[in-house]
């Protein structure tokens, strides 16, 4: 293997300069996706630019309106144990806690998870129901993307070459209860076969439901949300599951793997909805 440079900028401006200074330079955070691609020969960056020492990418900030700004270089372990994230976005705490095994969670970052953009990436359905937004910094300065603008296709996001994802913005979710469910073959190493994220707020009259791993892009399933809003009860939970299944079928089509996946979609969505409803604080 050719000698590859390892560069570790400590400011955002330095990172953007380094990335632009020569072709083929590539951002690395935890390296748990990128190192596997390099090993498999799918990627051969000229240099690795480690962004984990940049202050803006670290820590969680509480914003004035109860929203959070989560640093892109936070590991899944940090996210899983952060009390502010647990308070505002337990669906994300649980999604991050479900990634890989301990060793992976201690190294892998949320920024890497979203920029890598795999359809099975576990935080994506959670970020979809949270209505998260993404802040980047690049040659053209700071940019902000909604989740729809951010994910373009499987493995493809709007983050351009030389652009650094700095923060994930999570709006406050007052009065909502959250649930995350993951279905995988082996918990520790397997990528998700299905992930479901639900946020329900019967008093506010809204519900947000998203599934991961069975759709090409993370996104909410409006028909399932509408079905749940009919009553926020067990019957509505079942209807939401059925609506999610119909939606997945209409997008992904009758592929052989769907014989297994479709019934799992409806039951996992129903289960996640019931879980979210049962977690509501009783007044």
């Amino acid at each position, binding site marked *: *293997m050719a*000698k*590859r*440079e*390892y*560069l*570790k900028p400590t400011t955002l401006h330095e990172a953007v300069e380094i990335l632009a200074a020569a072709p083929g330079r590539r951002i*690395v955070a*935890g*390296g*748990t996706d990128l*190192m*596997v691609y*390099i*090993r498999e020969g799918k990627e051969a960056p000229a*240099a*690795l630019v*480690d962004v*984990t020492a940049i202050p803006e990418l670290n820590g969680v900030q509480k914003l004035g309106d109860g929203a959070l700004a989560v640093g892109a270089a936070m590991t899944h*372990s940090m996210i899983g144990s952060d009390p502010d994230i647990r308070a505002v976005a337990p669906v994300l705490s649980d999604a991050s806690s479900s990634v*890989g*095994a*301990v*060793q*992976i969670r*201690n*190294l892998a970052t949320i920024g890497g998870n979203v920029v890598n953009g795999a359809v099975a990436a576990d935080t994506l359905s959670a970020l979809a129901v949270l209505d998260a937004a993404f802040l980047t910094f690049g040659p053209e300065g700071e940019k902000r993307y909604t989740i729809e603008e951010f994910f373009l296709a499987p493995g493809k996001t709007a983050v351009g070459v030389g652009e650094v994802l700095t923060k994930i913005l999570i709006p406050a979710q007052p009065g909502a209860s959250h649930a995350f469910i993951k279905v995988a073959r082996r*918990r*520790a*190493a397997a990528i998700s076969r299905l992930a479901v994220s639900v946020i329900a707020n019967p008093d506010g009259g809204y519900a947000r439901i998203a599934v991961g791993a069975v759709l090409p892009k993370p996104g909410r399933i409006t028909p399932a949300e509408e079905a749940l809003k009919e009553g926020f009860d067990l019957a509505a939970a079942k209807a939401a599951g059925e609506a999610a299944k119909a939606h997945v079928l209409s997008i992904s089509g009758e592929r052989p793997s769907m014989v297994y996946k479709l019934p799992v979609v409806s039951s996992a969505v129903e289960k996640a909805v019931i879980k979210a409803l049962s977690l509501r604080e009783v007044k």
Partner: protein
Amino acid sequence: MFVEFTLNGEKVSAEISGETTALALLRENFDLIGAKEGCGVGECGACTILVDGVAVNGCLYLAGKLDGREVVTVEGVGGEDALDPLQKKFMEHGAVQCGYCTPGMLLSAKALLIRNPKPTLDEVKVAISGNLCRCTGYTPIVKAIMAATEEGK
């Protein structure tokens, strides 16, 4: 790139290139062969090392990240003359057969006990869920770790 870090309590330094993994560096430059390469892609845990007290996969961990950090390999745990309670219990419970997974298992257990000296059975299972063992069927390993926690009481 030049990195300086603490390795099993001693200050060390090395010249590395961008793709060097911590696993390769430890094995090839420092002759520490306790951490092993099983799968090379984060799935088996044979390469587990502790960095600043937390378990990571040495096969994915870039050596460039080691600068300024504290690394512990199995060679830094206990030793023949002063076995760590975990090592003692692994021996007593027959938790070692071929031994390939053992350094990683010990370090995953060690990382758990540093943070949580009295874990539950479930917490033990979660802590070693990233470590594959093809020999023991896990039961002796889990028992050994639980026994080591009782030792500390």
